[in-house]
């Protein structure tokens, strides 16, 4: 449904995104994850036909964003980073205006308006001036605008910005309910959001895509070692060294006051059984034994910190790609 092929965007000397390539299948929800200034908004603006790419092609629903912008615009709902609201209009007036410039007729507008007011819980404020609404309501009016004509493709730039925790959960539920019937691409720098809502995550950093996969696979494939957490009731003082001496254990981190140890072990090798036998056999009292999987947060930090402190884009990004390349292979098929 969305195909982005080698898209580069330059503002004068500054390169916002470089050779970005990805695609989103029909009915899929994709998260665009990255720190602020990574190029998320630029990519979304290109997809929404707000600005043309310097190089490369972007296609939405089979139409080229540069060649046939009107066809693309008819099929998308776009929520920009700052919700584009006319402060001096009421919610209903605003949504009516948006519906009209989206080419909806009176009947479509009536049903569309009723639907978004209900889904986004805006009914109680529909006669109020947008200027007088709280940030959370304004954000939801922005979302209502994108959903108004029920477009098949939704491009949402930070859809939960400025909402309170309860509203965030509601909007995530809403986006999840769109999956299947709608193709959604949303950007965020909040990691749990990506895990909660999306089937696939694209991590973008400094204008380049550094990883792309499901949230689960991303965290599993970027582990360099298996991590096992062990809690022992009465550890002998030299237990850390004894653990280290075991075959397959690479490193041991100990926290003596709780009796907890974090063991880094060879990749692809499950040492839990041997460790259990080892601890129980010596009579130290095994309280807890479990593998620790990396959260998406760890993955994100790992990927985006690689380039920190390195020289500008050119060689820094090359290096980052080489580092991720070997681990990409096993899971990409």
């Amino acid at each position: 449904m969305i195909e982005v092929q080698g898209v580069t965007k330059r503002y004068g000397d500054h390169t916002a995104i470089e050779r970005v390539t990805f695609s989103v299948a029909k009915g899929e929800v994709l998260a665009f994850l990255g720190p602020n200034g990574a190029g998320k908004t630029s990519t979304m603006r290109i997809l929404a036909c707000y600005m043309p790419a310097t190089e490369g092609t972007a296609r939405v629903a089979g139409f080229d964003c540069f060649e046939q912008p009107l066809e693309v615009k008819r099929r998308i709902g776009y929520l920009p980073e700052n919700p584009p609201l006319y402060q001096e209009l009421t919610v209903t007036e605003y949504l009516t205006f948006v519906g009209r410039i989206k080419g909806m007729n009176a009947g479509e507008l009536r049903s569309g308006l009723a639907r978004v007011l209900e889904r986004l819980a805006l009914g109680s404020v529909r006669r109020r001036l947008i200027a007088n609404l709280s940030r959370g309501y304004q954000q939801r009016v922005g979302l209502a605008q994108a959903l108004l004509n029920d477009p098949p493709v939704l491009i949402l730039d930070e859809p939960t910005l400025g909402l309170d925790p309860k509203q965030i959960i509601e909007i995530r539920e809403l986006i999840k309910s769109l999956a299947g019937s709608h193709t959604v691409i949303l950007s965020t720098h909040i990691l749990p959001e990506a895990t909660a809502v999306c089937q696939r995550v694209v991590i973008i950093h400094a204008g380049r895509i550094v990883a792309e996969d499901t949230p689960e696979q991303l965290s599993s494939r970027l582990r360099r070692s298996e991590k096992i957490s062990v809690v022992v009731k009465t550890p002998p003082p030299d237990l850390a060294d004894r653990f280290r001496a075991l075959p397959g254990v690479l490193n041991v981190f100990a926290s003596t006051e709780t009796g907890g140890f974090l063991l880094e072990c060879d990749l692809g090798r499950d040492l839990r059984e041997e460790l259990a036998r080892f601890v129980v056999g010596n009579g130290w009292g095994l309280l807890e034994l479990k593998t620790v999987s990396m959260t998406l947060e760890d993955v994100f930090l790992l990927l985006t910190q690689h380039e920190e402190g390195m020289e500008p884009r050119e060689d820094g990004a090359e290096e980052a790609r080489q580092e991720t390349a070997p681990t990409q292979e096993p899971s990409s098929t």
Partner: protein
Amino acid sequence: MTPVQAIIAKELRTAFVSPIVYVVGAVFLLIYGFLAYLYVVNAGSQAVRLMQLQGAAPQLNLNELVFRPTFYSMAIILMLVLPILTMRVFAEERKLRTFELLMTCPIRMNEVIIGKFLALLFLYLGMLALTGIVPLILATYSSFDWNPVLTGYLGLVLMGALFLATGVLASAMTENQVVAAFLSFGFLLLVWLLGLLGSVLGDTPVGNTIAYLSFIDHYDRLVRGLVDSKDLIYYLSGIVLMLFFAHRVLDSQRWK
């Protein structure tokens, strides 16, 4: 409702929510009323003077004593007032990022520009219609030739529309409303001075060309009651050209 109509409706709605239209309209009508009153009083005192000299009530030409000077003064007032009316039209949309909404909806840039221009024109026509009270009052107490008054109003409509189109272009060029207002005011003043330069150079090819470029000569003929297709074409092509430039400016900004 077509997209252009939707834009017009929204522009008029937001215009009447903001205080700008009320302030601009009030100041415009106040100055217009004051000027018209001034010229009427002047005509009256001339009549008194003539009566003392001749001993009989003279036949005064209101067209020459009241309407013509009022129309000339209007050109300058509009130059000051209309940039204030047009300054927010695109500058505000860009500043508040609502322009991004317009550009990602299935509506063409020229539909947006035409809709906004027409909304401004309607506002201006409304202001102008209210000034009609002066000739109506004068018509009940005296008689004058309506033709130059009507062609003068045609001139006001055309010249005002050109000012509005210039203002739309200026507003498209910047995010700052004050800069937009000053740009259009400065440009209009320059073009007006160009007309003075043309008349200084006199009846030479260069002088005539320069005079043709300024809006003031064309307006002058309409105020004197002459309707020439040359003048109408000048205003209409000027309006189209300004709106076309506005389109180019807005389009080019997307590439930056």
